[in-house]
């Protein structure tokens, strides 16, 4: 059985206790999406302010467990200022990291794992231990899925 320290790294606890980019933006103009985790009922809302092809600013509000909230916070830091292509790659990298147990846990999303360097992950690497706790993967991916939803809402 994997230990707690695999799950709760210092970075995670820090982002949990001091979440970055928390709050709301008026929407519109900000694009917005709501996501929730059917396992526990946690909900969060993502607000994105675009600047052309890039994410100019992002905020997140809602409730959640330490994994869900720290992952959201880490995500905001990672994507702010990035172009959509960069964000897409980050999302794929993140999902690849999370998908290690995709098959055996029967996760719905079958993402083709991609090659990446640890450096690209930045602080998000702290979430690596989550894969040893398959039930929590949904907590970690909630914010990403909601961001993707927001970006899709934009195009439609």
């Amino acid at each position, binding site marked *: 059985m994997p*230990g*707690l320290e695999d*799950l*709760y790294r210092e970075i995670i*606890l820090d982002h949990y206790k001091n979440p970055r980019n928390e709050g709301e933006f008026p929407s519109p103009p900000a694009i917005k999406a709501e996501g929730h985790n059917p*396992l*526990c*009922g*946690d*909900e969060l809302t993502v607000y994105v302010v675009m600047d052309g092809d890039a994410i100019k600013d992002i905020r997140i509000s809602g*409730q*959640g*467990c*330490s*994994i*869900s909230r720290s992952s959201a916070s880490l995500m905001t830091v990672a994507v702010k200022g990035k172009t959509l292509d960069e964000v897409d790659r980050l999302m794929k990298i993140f999902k690849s990291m999370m998908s290690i147990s995709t098959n055996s846990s029967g996760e719905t999303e079958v993402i083709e794992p991609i090659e990446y360097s640890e450096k690209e992950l930045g602080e998000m690497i702290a979430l690596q231990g989550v894969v040893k*706790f398959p039930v*929590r993967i949904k*907590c970690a991916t909630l914010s990403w899925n909601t961001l993707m939803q927001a970006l899709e809402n934009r195009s439609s």
Partner: protein
Amino acid sequence: MSKTLTTQLNVDQIRKDFPIFNQPEGKPLYFLDSGASSQKPQCVLDAMDNYYSTTHANVHRGVYHIAEQATELYESSRIKVGRFISAPHPAREILFSKNATESLNLLSTSLTRKLLKTGDIVVLSEMEHHANMVPWLIAKEQFGIELRYIPIDDNGYLILDNIDQILKGAKVLSITLTSNVLGTLNPISELAEMAHNEGALVIGDGAQYVPHIKTDVNTLGIDFLAMTGHKMLGPTGIGMLWGKSHLLELLPPFMGGGDMISDVRLDGFTPNEIPWKFEAGTPPIAEAIGLGAAIDYLENLGMENIRVHEVSLMEYAFDQLKSRFGEDIKIHGPTNIADRSGVISFEFKNIHPHDVSQILDQSGVCVRAGHHCAKPLMRHLGVNATARASFYIYNQQDDVDALVDALAKAEAFFA
């Protein structure tokens, strides 16, 4: 600190019967999630293995000896279930399904096929499990029935001030005997009487009740009772439904297939007699047999003793949790333990239930975290999730002590 429990159960002895508590290299297992699914004693596993190893064959259709014996075992489990809840006609009034959820879907479907029409009113409560809510929401979508809900107050009790109004003109009252989140024991026989006075049928969701409290469908005064095997020491894959025989005879079948028919033509079919009319296809044979062994085990302990044991554990737990954590822990539901079944849902400081459960797990303490399939109730409570500890026959003071200690660790961890 170490008040002793008031119990007739020899928990040490009981735990010896459960292989999961006796693993060779087992770390301590403080299993406080029987509300989700109970553990199984060896005799239940043995009953199924014995069956498979000596006389497995499909039931009802075989003339040869082992098929006949399989049928006999299967049908005698039906009678055991019936007697367990004092059904007037055990052999005819118990149906096997796959879980309580199917039992409730069977009812919602069968009732809407025959007795309910557009605009008819079905009354539920706001503390229902999704299993007794979504089937009716589907019936609403499909057939236009209307739903009314009995609200709940801040202490987790049903608000009965306007109950006359709510039941007025209702065709069905479908309600849980006890809440899987709050633990509230609802006043079923009173509600059943009021509903019957309005001409409504009364369905009880007994998933969380029947495993813990001596059940007599006659004194409950209801018409149908949904149950599930895996929460009462039985295997997964089996649920039960009791119904008054004249009502079961009236209702049309749910699923179609083998065994539930008396005749099939290319253009129509004639249903079988009850109870088989409601059992389409190969039933959960081994599971029924395992459930029969579980019922024997429970009856041997005595359902009254089980209740006394659980009440005593609850008292101890309330005591310990409150004296250790005071205002830092908030327990949902009635404060009067006599009004509760053995589940404790709580909020602990500001720590998310997922995190609570994960940290408790490190100490071998298993509690559930989530919405407990009762999202409308969660919304009422103003939370997304709670942590829930629930008790059964194999739990003891140790389990409560471990829970309290592990909570203290969680407190420290997230401090």
